[in-house]
């Protein structure tokens, strides 16, 4: 994969620095550039800069010559500055989310019971999202493909962030996370690797299967939803949030996948597209139980002080992914209105 096209001063600083290494330009974002960011959660420049820095820890870029860039102290300083702005915005959004839930202490006797009840409660009312309903009944083939393209940034790296958490937790929670990841990674069968299933769906529509093409067009909000997982998974202090995020994600996935599957069938898209969503209806019904009861409950039984972080991570997942979904819906609506007017 090659470095993406920067789209503002922050991503330009990071991309230029990576290109220029090892001569080593100074990549720390200028305070002025950070000051220009009005809403970090949809700011494409900030999110792209952060995404590039995170990608150094996954598969990296072919046009970054210096393999040591991953742990370059100046780039770390950059990442920390971007992460601070990002995390602050996520905490503000979570704080502004109406909480009708009782306090954790009132939800059960032990931290494990409390966290289980909070996660079940929080995800219980979520049916299929508005995006899934749109794809099910209304989307055109083109709109459906634009959805796949937008989500490719997530699905082509699906489950990788959470693997970073395995060495950071212990006991039953570690075992349950390994069990969940084993399933995500194909259950011993390379052809069932979930990332590969998604790539096959893209290929069946003659869409590119490389991540770089999709990063170039992804919105700031989509990059934020992906970056959120890396933020939680790559910072050990946020391991509780990483697992809460996973639980909320899995618990709100089966029903939407079922709708998207029906949408794919309605549009008579190739079976490879349907196959991905078909796999996820059943898989995510299992993963939801593993994530809530196996991972999160066991984690807080082991480390009770992580209980609020688990709930924070779950709330952040729903809020940030909700925002990304809204941006998608608004885009489809605007394009339909344009067409109607034109």
């Amino acid at each position, binding site marked *: 994969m090659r470095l993406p096209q920067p789209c503002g001063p922050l991503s330009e600083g990071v991309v230029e620095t990576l290109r220029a290494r090892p001569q080593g330009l100074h990549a720390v974002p200028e305070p002025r550039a950070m000051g220009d960011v009005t809403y970090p959660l949809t700011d494409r420049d900030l999110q792209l800069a952060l995404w590039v820095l995170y990608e150094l820890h996954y598969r990296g870029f072919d046009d970054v010559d210096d393999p040591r860039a991953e742990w370059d102290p100046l780039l770390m300083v950059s990442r920390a500055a971007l992460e601070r702005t990002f995390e602050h915005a996520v905490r503000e959004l979570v704080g502004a989310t109406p909480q009708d839930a009782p306090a954790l202490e009132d939800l059960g006797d032990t931290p494990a019971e409390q966290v289980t009840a909070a996660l079940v409660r929080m995800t219980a009312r*979520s049916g299929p999202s508005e995006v899934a309903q749109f794809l099910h009944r209304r989307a055109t083939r083109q709109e459906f493909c634009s959805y796949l393209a937008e989500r490719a940034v997530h699905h082509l790296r699906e489950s990788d962030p959470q693997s970073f958490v395995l060495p950071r937790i212990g006991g039953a929670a570690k075992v349950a996370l390994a069990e969940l990841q084993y*399933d995500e990674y194909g259950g011993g069968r390379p052809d069932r690797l979930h990332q590969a299933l998604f790539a096959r769906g893209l290929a069946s529509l003659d869409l590119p299967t490389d991540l770089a093409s999709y990063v170039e067009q992804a919105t700031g909000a989509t990059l934020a939803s992906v970056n959120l997982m890396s933020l939680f998974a790559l910072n050990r202090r946020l391991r509780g949030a990483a697992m809460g995020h996973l639980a909320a994600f899995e618990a709100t996935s089966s029903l939407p996948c079922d709708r998207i599957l029906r949408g794919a069938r309605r549009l008579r898209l190739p079976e490879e597209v349907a196959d991905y969503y078909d796999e996820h209806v059943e898989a*995510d019904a299992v993963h939801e*139980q593993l994530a809530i009861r196996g991972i999160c409950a066991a984690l807080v039984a082991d480390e009770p002080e992580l209980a609020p972080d688990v709930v924070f991570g779950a709330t952040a997942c729903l809020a940030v992914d909700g925002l990304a979904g809204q941006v998608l819906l608004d885009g489809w609506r605007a394009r339909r209105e344009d067409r109607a007017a034109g």
Partner: protein
Amino acid sequence: MSKRRVVVTECPGGPLLVRGADEVVGVDGTAAPVERAVVAVCRCGRSDRLPWCDDSHRDRRRKRSP
């Protein structure tokens, strides 16, 4: 090699998690092969993919589809 264990875990308000089984026989007598390390077997009867749970147990309004 140790004897393989089959473990069934109840999830309150949701499915049974089953580890180590080879097949699950549905009410109509058809045996569904177990193709993943852990499977969720529906207990509420609302799933469209019986015998597997498809998360329909969440939706209290939804009627069981025949």
